């Protein structure tokens, strides 16, 4: 039974990296404007369709290695555009409104974006085929790494390091930290908080687009409803890691992915738990973990103390 452990760990790691990348978007926006952007799952989805569009526009037979950077740019551009549009036209007018108003707006936006892609994107009523990297799997010890995983394996850490450097070292990054700590004082100190908020949305959207390409390469398809479950899991990851904390989001994603993979693989081997094992139960374990964390450590693994602000 345990000879599959390295492979299951790797499976969880790849899955968790994608969750983590999406979770960044939830956590950054929450950290600055205390809004749970429930449309973020759909921003992730539009990133996937943006990348697919670029691939379809490119001449037939273009090498995927060549197309991939362009798809990244196209996917990121699409989701950034949607995220900025959402921020400017849906959330900004509601910034002084009661907390519930932007939340409802986010849910409405999420449905609207899903339906828009479903009805307007050609043949999007059923899943669209996403191109695959035609190589692999590579064997590394007891672990098989597939081509789609390889992209995740490279992209996720790079994204995280760049983000950490950006937030710590750059002027905009420090302005972001300041806005997160106290938006009013930050504005008094001459920080353009509107620009900072827009930047947070944009960064989240870029990460979501990268995650969408990981998703497309892994599963070979993108669909109009792919953002729903992925968004829910990523939101869970963000809360798990401590919402508002970008390292927490990544850690939460990894923990969630690993927990899901290991519980799915081995729960059935525990005596008396046969009924609870298997693939069909995988979402259950993700949310059981969330409930446990909320009960035992409400601020999340790397919790920010938000109680005094909320």
């Amino acid at each position, binding site marked *: 039974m345990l*000879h*599959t452990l390295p*492979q*299951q760990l790797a*499976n*969880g790691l*790849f*899955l968790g990296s994608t969750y983590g990348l999406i979770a960044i978007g939830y956590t950054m926006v929450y950290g600055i404007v205390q809004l749970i952007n429930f449309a973020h799952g759909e921003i992730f989805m539009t990133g996937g369709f943006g990348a697919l569009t670029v691939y379809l526009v490119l001449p037939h037979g273009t090498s995927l290695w060549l197309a991939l950077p362009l798809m990244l740019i196209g996917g990121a551009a699409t989701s950034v555009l949607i995220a900025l549009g959402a921020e400017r036209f849906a959330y900004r*007018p509601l910034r002084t409104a009661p907390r519930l108003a932007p939340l409802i707006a986010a849910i409405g936006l999420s449905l609207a974006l899903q339906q828009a892609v*479903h009805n307007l994107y050609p*043949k999007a*009523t*059923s*899943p669209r*085929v996403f191109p*695959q990297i035609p190589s*692999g*799997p590579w*064997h590394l010890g007891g672990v*098989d790494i*597939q*081509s*789609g995983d390889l992209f995740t394996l490279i992209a996720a850490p790079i994204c995280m390091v760049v983000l950490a450097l950006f937030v710590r070292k750059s002027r905009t990054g420090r302005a972001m930290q300041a806005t997160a700590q106290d938006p009013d004082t930050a504005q008094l100190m001459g920080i353009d908080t509107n620009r900072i908020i827009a930047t947070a949305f944009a960064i989240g959207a870029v990460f979501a687009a990268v995650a969408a390409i990981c*998703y497309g390469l*892994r*599963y*070979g*398809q993108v669909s109009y*409803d*792919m953002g729903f*479950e992925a968004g829910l899991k990523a939101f869970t990851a963000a809360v798990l890691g401590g919402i508002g904390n970008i390292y927490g989001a990544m850690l939460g994603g990894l923990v969630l992915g690993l927990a*899901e*993979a290991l519980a*799915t*693989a081995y729960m059935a081997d525990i005596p008396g738990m046969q009924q609870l094992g*298997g*693939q*069909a139960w*995988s*979402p259950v374990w993700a949310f059981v973990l969330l409930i446990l964390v909320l009960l035992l450590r409400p601020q999340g693994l790397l919790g920010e103390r938000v109680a005094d602000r909320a």
Partner: protein
Amino acid sequence: MRHRSLLVLSIALTGALTVTACGSRGGSKSGGDSASGTTVTIGVDAPLSGQNSATGLGIQYGVQIAVDDANKNKTVPGVTFKVKALDDQAQPATGQQNATSLVADSSVLGVVGPLNSGVAQSMQQVFETANLVEISPSNTNPALTQGPNWASGTKVRGYKTYFRTATTDALQGAYAAQYASGSGKKNAFVVDDKQTYGAGLAGIFKDAFAKDGGAIAGTDHVSTGDKDFSTLVTKIKSSGADMLYYGGQYDEASLLSKQLKAAGDNIPLMGGDGIFSATYISVGGTGTEGDLATSVGSPVDGLATAQDFISKYKAAKYPGDYGTYGGYSYDAATAIIKAIGNVVAANGGKVPSDARAKVVDGVQKADFDGIAGHVSFDQFGDTNNKQLTVYQVTGGKWVSVKTGAYTG
């Protein structure tokens, strides 16, 4: 600022409402014009978007072609047929709502659908109460016609308005097991999607495969809509199975097969008519090469009687896959149309007030050669055409490898 955005919103809303209004007005007008005499509606219920929609659209347009042919040939003098297709999104609850709204439309005298056995369960009672005939081109779960205790031999027909042109999984699962063990498979991993159709079929396959002397390497279940099967794939790979049997639909099966082959485990996936769709191959890619599927009936592409249907389907550029159930949908709609024809003829060329009940009786007595085989029903509402076909993905296409009826 506020006022301006309010203004913009109201303009947008008014615009939207105007467009909708135009749409519905136009729709009802064209309906009225085309009716020379009485208009009778054939309802369709199938998943037309999202999961399973490729085969669902095949059902919708299969019926559409049957209706167009009936109108063109004036099969029933004085009656014009039209199609009312509703999308159940493969959800039992939505299917039931659709059934209710089809029943409420008094011009509907028969319904073709649904695609999914689980959806059928939620619709049967609605149609039974309304005496409205329902013919599914694709439901294969035995309990739908023979009652929940069919396996122990106590077969009881629950609904006299329910018929199907597809044969049952009791035969399909056993036929698949026979083919698998006949081709040298000894150790099968069995996965299903927990749905009425998938779990039923996988269970029948498992029992039949064990009876034929095969071993079961393991079992697992997935949820519809799952995309990530990496954990399951690792489990299947380490189980040493020489084939994977999947009870469910192509949406999950294609991803499962693809991820299995990508992980370097080159065992074939075998499934039922739920995975027999061109979309299975287009989504699953080269990973599906060598995979197997059983499906109901004889291969429609090879039937001389179906060539006219196929060319019409292609000429009209209808979306979806006609290959799985298109021919059976055409025959199901034709059975309803023929029954209506007899009812109308017996009533002096007019649709009688109790037409629905009479159409049910007429369908029970149906006996004609359809485009996909002979159409007639036994005392349970099951088709007497028990042909099954094994297909294999060869060179990126489903190729039939064996056709026959299951014999013990």
